[in-house]
């Protein structure tokens, strides 16, 4: 009578483990496709830049490097708080998970608010996506990246509500891990956008 119960419990743990692996692998496949999404636009930027390097360098000087550097730090820090949230969820530490997620969301919001001020400054100076090829690329790349940050913030907010209910315990933390992977990728994309848009003169 005892045996079937033990087997069932073992199966359950195994199902748990394989669900984790399958979800994580699916997220990695999605991330690979996300990289190609941005790669296509970056390729367009490279080709356009090759044809008018002087004009691109000139236009890039209009951008605010200080704000972009602060935004880079905000995303890097948010990646750290995300890692800490995943670690807390692994240990079943509800407060730690909630704190880590809340900090990550807050830093994501800081990024978007700064991006908003950057965009409004450009519009104020009469700079739009149609101004020239550089700003076409700039608004395209940063716009899509900003949408990804927004999507991440929404996903993290849902996760925050779920985490606050104490769902992530006994080794179950798959959604935190997968959302974390997505958030880190958004950080990686910005790690490339920052130098190619703001720093190359």
């Amino acid at each position: 009578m005892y045996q079937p119960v033990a087997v069932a419990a073992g199966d359950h743990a195994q199902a748990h483990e394989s669900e984790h692996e399958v979800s994580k692998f699916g997220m990695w496949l999605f991330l690979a496709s996300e990289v190609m999404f941005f790669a296509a636009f970056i390729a367009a930027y490279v080709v356009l830049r090759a044809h008018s390097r002087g004009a691109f360098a000139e236009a890039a000087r209009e951008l605010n490097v200080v704000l972009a550097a602060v935004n880079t730090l905000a995303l890097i820090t948010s990646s750290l708080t995300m890692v800490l949230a995943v670690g807390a969820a692994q240990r079943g530490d509800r407060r730690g998970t909630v704190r880590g997620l809340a900090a990550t969301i807050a830093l994501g919001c800081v990024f978007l608010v700064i991006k908003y001020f950057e965009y409004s400054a450009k519009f104020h100076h009469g700079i739009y996506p149609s101004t020239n090829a550089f700003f076409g690329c700039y608004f395209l790349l940063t716009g899509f990246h900003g949408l990804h940050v927004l999507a991440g913030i929404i996903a993290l907010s849902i996760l925050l509500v779920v985490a606050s209910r104490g769902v992530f315990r006994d080794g179950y933390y798959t959604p935190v891990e997968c959302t974390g992977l997505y958030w880190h990728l958004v950080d990686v994309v910005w790690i490339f956008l920052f130098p190619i848009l703001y720093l190359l003169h």
Partner: protein
Amino acid sequence: MSHPVATRPSVVVFAWLVVLTALTVGAAHVDLGYPGGVVVALAIAVAKATLVGLWFMHLKYETRIYHAVALFPVVLFCILACAMVPDVVYGSF
């Protein structure tokens, strides 16, 4: 269960990311010429992305299949870059 997240190494990686960010901003203020400036900026970006991938996305502790999935778009981008060479070098438009 996957490899447990350790706080200390994560903070060390974070510190490196901050240092590399400062370095890339600093390098932008030095005239490294062309393509020197581009090479330095991209090298630092690749280093930062590698740190995030290996430690924060814990590829360091994943099996080979994950490394393959992570490197696949990199390989595709290299192929795309090769296809872009005529456009970049000869200016076909």
